[in-house]
């Protein structure tokens, strides 16, 4: 494809002299997209550290605050290492298989300073995806806070990433079978939120309830901390969703806008529902609704329009609200920080609704238009297949991993340790010594 007309060559070099900025564009690098994905990588890491960490840590009791921060932090640490060693390769490696990426890029072999992924450096793509691999197991933390052994938590996390997250990421985003089938999951409704939610549910059931569950002695110790973390999640989510466009373009812009709108709609929903149910809008309700709105829009952020984003936030908000209550009040499952009802159900709802709201024929609620050769019906079937298979796969594998870890090293700390709190028993530290 190299042009060999002398004139053209001359023009091109002239252009390079005139527009030095273009020089970088050689070899296909798009600096603008690179800039935005570098930024998005920072934003998504920021979601976990400190965003999610603070959000979760504020919701537990004082005696466990540091253990939650450490759970999130150490997950980021070990996943980062595993990502380098094999994770990236399993998820995005060059294998032809529709089931995993193979080990061709283990140890980042071949991912040197010159490697490209589309029009951005491969290192940038790999770093961006890594931040997703970090936050997904970190989301699960909400299920097992205040009672899990630190070492078992780490072992679980590594196994879970290897057996659940990396393969599923391959299926959907790495060229695997679900992606080939046309599953719409822009930024992780299934890959991230559904897997995390289902895993959380399994863990909550296996671990059992915290001592004092559903009594006033288990109230959040610091809602200002949770609020701070929630606000960071909102901001960071711009990188999560708009970064998933892998470009600084119109798709990114729309993703950012609908993401924001859905967050606001989810928060509003919870405020209104709390107001109806209890006569007051609670702060924790508002920020939880925000997370529900964000989880719901995530798979659909590349498909829906502004009003579609509003709708998703409202619907996701309502559904997550009632599932949260049902799980806690009726089923009495101690998914302590409501990972399944908020992330699992939110991600599931958004993934299914994306099939509808992507349609270009919904008037003011129109999305970006049905993918080629798809109808709302056929797309919905694909989405359903995605949700069901990923949900089942995650549930079964998580259960197996939990059983293994449990057998080998035990899962739950003793009752005495639980009284004292994990900060002291697992880390010999206290959050506050004021």
């Amino acid at each position, binding site marked *: 494809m190299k042009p060999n007309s002398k004139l053209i060559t001359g023009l091109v070099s002239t252009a390079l002299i005139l527009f030095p900025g273009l020089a970088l564009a050689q070899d296909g690098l798009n600096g603008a997209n690179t800039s935005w994905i570098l930024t998005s990588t920072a934003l998504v890491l920021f979601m976990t550290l400190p965003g999610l960490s603070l959000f979760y840590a504020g919701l537990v009791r004082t005696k466990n605050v540091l253990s939650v921060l450490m759970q999130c932090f150490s997950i980021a640490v070990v996943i980062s290492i595993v990502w380098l060693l094999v994770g990236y390769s399993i998820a995005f490696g060059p294998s032809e298989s529709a089931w995993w990426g193979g080990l061709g890029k283990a140890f980042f072999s071949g991912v040197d300073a010159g490697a490209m992924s589309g029009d951005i450096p491969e290192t940038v793509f790999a770093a961006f995806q890594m931040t997703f691999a970090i936050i997904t197991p970190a989301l699960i933390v909400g299920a097992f806070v205040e009672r899990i052994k630190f070492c078992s938590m780490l072992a679980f996390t590594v196994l879970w990433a290897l057996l659940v997250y990396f393969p599923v990421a391959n299926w959907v985003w790495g060229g695997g079978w679900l992606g080939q089938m046309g599953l719409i999951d822009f930024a992780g409704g299934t890959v991230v939120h559904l897997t995390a939610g289902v895993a959380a549910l399994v863990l909550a059931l296996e671990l059992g309830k915290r001592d004092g569950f559903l009594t*006033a002695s288990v*109230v959040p110790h610091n809602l200002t901390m949770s609020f701070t973390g929630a606000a960071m999640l909102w901001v960071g989510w711009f990188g999560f969703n708009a970064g998933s466009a892998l470009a600084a373009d119109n798709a990114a812009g729309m993703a950012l806008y609908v993401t924001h709108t859905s967050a606001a709609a989810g928060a509003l929903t919870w405020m209104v529902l709390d107001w109806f149910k209890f006569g007051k809008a*609670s702060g*924790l*309700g508002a920020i939880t609704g925000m997370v529900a709105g964000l989880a719901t829009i995530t798979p659909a952020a590349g498909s829906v329009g502004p009003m579609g984003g509003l709708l998703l936030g409202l619907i996701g908000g309502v559904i997550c609200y009632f599932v*949260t*209550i049902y799980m806690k*009040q009726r089923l009495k499952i101690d998914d302590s920080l*409501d990972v399944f009802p908020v992330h699992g159900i939110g991600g599931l709802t958004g993934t299914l609704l994306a099939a509808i709201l992507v349609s270009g024929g919904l008037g003011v609620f129109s999305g970006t238009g049905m993918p080629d050769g798809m109808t709302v019906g056929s797309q919905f079937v694909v989405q359903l297949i995605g949700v069901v298979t990923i949900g089942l796969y995650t549930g079964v594998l998580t259960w197996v991993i939990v059983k293994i870890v449990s057998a080998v090293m035990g899962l739950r700390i003793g009752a005495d340790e639980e009284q004292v709190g994990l900060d002291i028993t697992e880390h010999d530290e206290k959050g506050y010594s004021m």
Partner: protein
Amino acid sequence: MKLIVAIIKPYKSDDVREVVSELGVSGMTLTEVKGFGRQKGHTELYRGAEYVIDFLPKVKLEIAVEDDRADQIVEAICKAANTGKIGDGKIFVCSLEQTIRIRTGETGNDAL
């Protein structure tokens, strides 16, 4: 000497300090405590659930005084801390065997 222990509503502590200062009390010690009593605690919301918090924030003032001024001071505290609403608190009076001022080693009424 007597030790007057007053458990009052937090926002009344400045008022009480003022009236007892006016009566010549030169010192007191304040502790933030939580009280359980006839006054109902408040409800707290947690993601679709409601919890009743039984313990309410109160302030405990400890004031050591000479025997003969105890009644007068108790009365003044009572007045200053009163709102007429449930939860205004209690005053307890114990007998104090001895008081020592650490700085000087003075004892008894001199140490107050």
